[in-house]
């Protein structure tokens, strides 16, 4: 099993004819994802050609998400539109009744997100991102930009605020023989649609997941809240990593959300909260594998 996406996922791509949208649509199709529709205003009625190598049929393009949903029954949307249009794209997907919306776009104004967040919630949808790499259920389907070849099916859930750092850890997991149920990048913005707790709860409920890796970074208190949640509500082992131990306070470390404000949001604070909650945290990325091996083995023997 997996969380959020699986064999029933019928994917819509908003911004399918753009540079990033078309490239990644081909990647997702190649991975076997059921991309059922694309949206580009003004190109309704055309079809997106997956390329000569593709075995999938061309993807129909619509002018609006509502049209696309009505015609194709799409139930997940992934967004690759420029940042000033991304808030509208998310709201359009939510209003059209899409239950899971994944926004890859980076650079959304944070005030846009203050309005998008309640809108999505008012419509009963889940947003992942923005400014995130999306998610992948290895061997089944991928939504976003996580490279498929570094993943492998298996029992580990992974949730991360980062992009390439996620790839680094997924790659190490796979090389170490730890396949994944689902890898989710929740994004590095200060306001995002899905947080660590949402994913941890989903992994806890997913029967196929036996342990979880969570990768945090400086800024905010999401990791601290997640740590408290883990200590209260999770039976499965969780191991972690926090990036930004060397980040100076008051500076935005690339991600809009990666900023230490005053004394809050430091790596030390997060590591402390996680360790207190029983989540061992690796000093180096490679340590995560070691910690995971100990914990999974430990749980294995406790159960066995």
């Amino acid at each position: 099993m997996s969380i959020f996406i699986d064999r029933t996922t019928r994917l819509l791509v908003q911004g399918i004819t753009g540079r990033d949208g078309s490239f990644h649509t081909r990647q997702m199709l190649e991975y076997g994802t059921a991309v059922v529709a694309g949206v580009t205003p003004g190109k309704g009625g055309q079809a997106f050609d997956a390329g000569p190598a593709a075995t999938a049929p061309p993807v129909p393009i619509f002018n609006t998400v509502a049209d696309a949903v009505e015609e194709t029954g799409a139930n997940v949307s992934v967004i690759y539109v420029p940042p000033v249009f991304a808030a509208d794209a998310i709201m359009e997907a939510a209003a059209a009744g899409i239950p899971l919306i994944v926004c890859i776009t980076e650079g959304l104004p944070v005030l846009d997100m203050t309005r998008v967040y309640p809108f999505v919630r008012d419509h009963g949808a889940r947003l992942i991102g923005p400014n995130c790499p999306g998610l992948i259920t290895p061997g089944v389907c991928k939504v976003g930009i996580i490279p498929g070849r570094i993943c492998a099916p298996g029992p580990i859930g992974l949730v991360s605020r980062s992009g390439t750092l996620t790839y680094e850890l997924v790659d190490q997991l796979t090389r170490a023989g730890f396949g994944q149920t689902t890898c989710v990048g929740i994004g590095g913005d200060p306001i995002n649609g899905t947080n660590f707790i949402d994913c941890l709860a989903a992994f806890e409920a997913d029967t196929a997941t036996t342990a979880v890796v969570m990768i945090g970074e400086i800024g905010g208190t999401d990791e601290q809240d997640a740590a408290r949640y883990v200590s209260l509500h999770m039976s499965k082992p969780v191991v972690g990593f926090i990036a930004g131990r060397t980040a100076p306070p008051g500076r935005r470390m690339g991600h809009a959300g990666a900023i230490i404000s005053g004394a809050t949001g430091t790596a030390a604070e997060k590591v402390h909260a996680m360790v207190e909650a029983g989540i061992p945290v690796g000093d180096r990325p490679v340590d995560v594998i070691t910690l995971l091996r100990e914990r999974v083995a430990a749980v294995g023997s406790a159960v066995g």
Partner: protein
Amino acid sequence: MNIHEYQAKELLRQAGVPVQPGEVAATPSEAEAIAARFGTAVVIKAQVHAGGRGKAGGVKLAKTPAEARAHAERILGMSIKGLVVSHVLVAQAADIASESYVGIIVDRVSKRPVVMASPAGGIDIEEVAATTPNRIRRVAVDPRYGLQPFEAMQLAFFLYHDVRRARAAARILRQLYDAFIASGASLAEINPLVSTPTGELVAVDAKISIDDNELERHPELAALRDETAEAPSETDARKANLTFIKLEGNVGCVVNGAGLAMATMDLVKYYGGEPANFLDIGGSSNPEKVVNALRIITSDAQVRVILFNIFGGITRTDDVANGIVTAIRQHPLRVPIVIRLTGTNEQEAVRILASAGLSAVTDMDEAVRAAVALVGAESVS
């Protein structure tokens, strides 16, 4: 993006906020002329993006135009926290009966703009929050409705007991909120908001930070950027679409992705090195970006080794390799380089590097250790 006090005040004035009258001067004689025109005592205030300018001597009261000139002479050209003062604000001195603080930030926990008010004006609000939290009142504004009159009045009554000043403060709070939203700000504050002996309210100092992601929508605000107020290397990086933050160490880092960049810096430190910078070349990097990145990093004389850490996904590692080779051909490096590449088009990248006599590793840990060792070896030699 930070804007100067005088720019922030102009935005507030446009929103209707009563603002202390003032004008900007770039020379002592301009300052003198403005003071003469006002015909009152004035305050000469350094316009720099740095806190604590008062303590640094960047704010002075002048009772006469001559005094204004003298203060401006001293303040212009002064360096405050590494930033040179090129402009001063010459503002009419206000009669102060009391000082309050009002401000707005975007709060990541409530995911809303939060309006704050404190009767402890003139003081750094983070200090008030830390020492006397009961002296701050907050309202998390539902952005679907905006700051409502009743919410503004609740905060205003926390600042003032008489209804006249409370109404004036509520009006100012709503105007501040409007300016905050209209300008796509991430921070907007008036500190102090002064109540005069006659009960008028006036904004005596103001600060606004614009969300960088809003600048595309607000070219008129983007034009307010003062590049003299930034570190040149950061300006350079911004123009090259790179995220760059200068630090104090000597291991220059070029990484794709913010999280991986931080993790790389952390690993440098873990192995006993000191990162010279944070630098994210972003997702879809092209060779030119890499060239720019190398130029910026190598312009830092402290840098003793350059460490590339590239995990190819969207980023094609062959693009990065091409960028490295191009850059080195243009400007041969004066320091060693360690390259870690893995992912998309990795084999092609290795071939490109090899053709220029460079080698690469695929393991991050190994690369960082090698880079740190090079610095150590060099400093020993």
